[in-house]
């Protein structure tokens, strides 16, 4: 299937933004000595496509009532979200580089009261799809055209609250709500499938009444096509994109390993990682 025409971006532009996400994740981790590399790298293409091609936001007016909302179910990957917000101008790079320092607005998990552009606080897995349901209900009640996107992890699918939220979103036919599951297959303790298998996810979400698409989350054509399907061609119920990704994607020695779910690169490995990131995805 041919990719649909883009409004704002090309694959080359989005690939550069994904590189930026990975590069800045490494730099920010350098500041604090620990970071969720794997989760930030796996979502890089998804977040780049969302912000630069699809979401309607106003960096100069962060609380614009009709902005599209983006919530981080997987709040531990905020380190890969903040650089996008800085790049768009929600705050300066200088501010971002206070990351994790005493009193900084920016920590490992996002605080909506401190980080402009962060639509909700996060860090406790499984909360934000519920919050997004409430946002979608409120926006619909206000007659706003704004949409709500909640990015979840695949480990997050083990939280019962996710399914409470899924049930309610379908019950209320929240067409303006989009879930994305970043299926990087890795959790804190190892492979998600070994820790607590959550498959078949497609059947589960479909059974809960959602439109479902499963894609390669690093293929920018597939990502953009799925987001267009979910956001611009919504029907009468919520949509979920199941994005198969690779934890640590973009740095060969970090890919697919739970060891890099959370960690710190020494100087040599950091330089190797940055060099690989600049080469881009194969």
């Amino acid at each position, binding site marked *: 299937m041919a990719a649909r025409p883009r409004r704002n971006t090309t694959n080359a532009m989005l690939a550069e933004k994904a590189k930026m996400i990975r590069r800045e994740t490494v730099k920010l981790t350098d500041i604090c000595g620990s970071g969720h590399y794997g989760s930030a790298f796996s979502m890089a293409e998804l977040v780049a496509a969302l912000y630069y091609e699809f979401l309607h936001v106003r960096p100069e007016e962060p609380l614009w009532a009709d902005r599209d909302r983006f919530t981080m179910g997987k709040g531990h990957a905020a380190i890969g979200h903040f650089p996008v917000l800085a790049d768009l101008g929600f705050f300066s790079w200088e501010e971002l580089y206070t990351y994790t320092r005493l009193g900084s607005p920016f920590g490992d998990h996002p605080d909506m009261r401190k980080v402009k552009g962060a639509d*909700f*606080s996060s860090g406790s897995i499984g*909360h934000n799809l*519920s919050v997004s349901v*409430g946002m*979608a209900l*409120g926006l619909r*009640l*206000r007659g706003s055209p704004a949409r709500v996107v909640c990015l979840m992890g695949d480990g997050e699918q083990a939280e019962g609250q996710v399914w409470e939220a899924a049930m*309610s979103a379908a019950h209320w036919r929240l067409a303006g709500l989009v879930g994305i599951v970043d299926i990087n297959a890795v959790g804190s303790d190892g492979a998600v499938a070994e820790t607590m298998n959550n498959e078949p996810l497609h059947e589960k979400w479909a059974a809960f009444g959602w439109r479902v698409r499963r894609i390669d989350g690093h293929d920018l054509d597939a990502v953009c096509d799925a987001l267009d399907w979910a956001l611009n061609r919504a029907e009468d119920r919520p949509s979920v994109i199941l994005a198969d990704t690779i934890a640590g994607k973009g740095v060969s020695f970090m890919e697919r390993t739970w060891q890099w779910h959370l960690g710190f690169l020494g100087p040599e490995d950091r330089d190797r990682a940055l060099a690989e990131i600049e080469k881009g995805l194969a």
Partner: protein
Amino acid sequence: MSTTAATPPGASASPSGRAAYAAIRNPAVDMSESTVRPGFDPASWDMVGSLNLSLQLPTGQVLIELADAGRDDIVVCTADLGRPTQVINFGRRFPHRYFNFGIAERNMIGAAAGLATTGFTPFISNYSFFLALMGAENIRNDLAYTNLRVRMVGTHSGIAMGFYGTSHHCCEDIGLLRAIANLVVMAPCDANAIRAALPAMLDHDGPVYFRCGRGREAPVYDAPPAWRLGGSTMLRDGRHATLFAIGTLVKAGLDAHEILAREGISLRVVDLYSIKPIDRSAILAAAKEHGVLFTGEEHNVVSGLGSAVAEVLAEAGAGARLVRIGLDDQYSILGPPTHLYRHYGLDGEGVAAKVKAALGKAG
């Protein structure tokens, strides 16, 4: 009152249902201490009908009045408890602003937070034990950490659910929730207190938890009282001791005041409805005037109102003795609520006895 035996609703009522119906119709069964006797409809023996007895839970009516007065931002959330917590009337009036989440409290709390971010003022109306105990982490992360304008009305608190058992008792919510920063914790003790509290806190810039009763308790106020953040209401002045009470213990305190007055003991009774923030000046004034203070609550004495008062006294070096009346770090046995109040000394006589004993010991 008619003595004609009426058929219970539902032609195929189960034998146990019929037996229960027969029992309540049986004059040999002593209903004198039942909380549902006054006004109980013997013809229907109907849960929905019996909810009309919950006269002290006017949440839905108060919110309808506020909405009618132009507050289009008010929305109501519940988790399959719109009837017993008395907000279903709001749903009938404003169906698009009424969200019943089914039995999914955590989802409800998160969605209320989401609604608040889009400019609405959500009121969650639910049983306190499911809302506050199950939902504590969601309340903390989604409502309080984010400082959103969500109001929670936690009903049926304490041991008001009686024989429904420990899962339906809530003697820990004050302790859990007053540990959460940004969260205001208040306890309206009757319908008029709720009528005062909800409008007074409507525009408070942050989350509020209202700890309410089952709605069948005896009223305290004839009209909505003054209500403010960190406030309290002195209902009776007294020369010998002060009782700071919330919930059903306010009425028990008033009863104790009368009992003690007959014996020459003068008890000040204060409705300390604002648990967090708390009225330090009322506490310290009482400590200065009286050597012995009492707190009364349907809550574990560990971490509840008594602990909050103790913190104020200790930090101020006030030196007054404090007697905490409540559940003494144990789960309540089950039984009809009024029987439980008597059993644990949480009625007027029980409070009076504790005051007398403490004053006697204090010399």
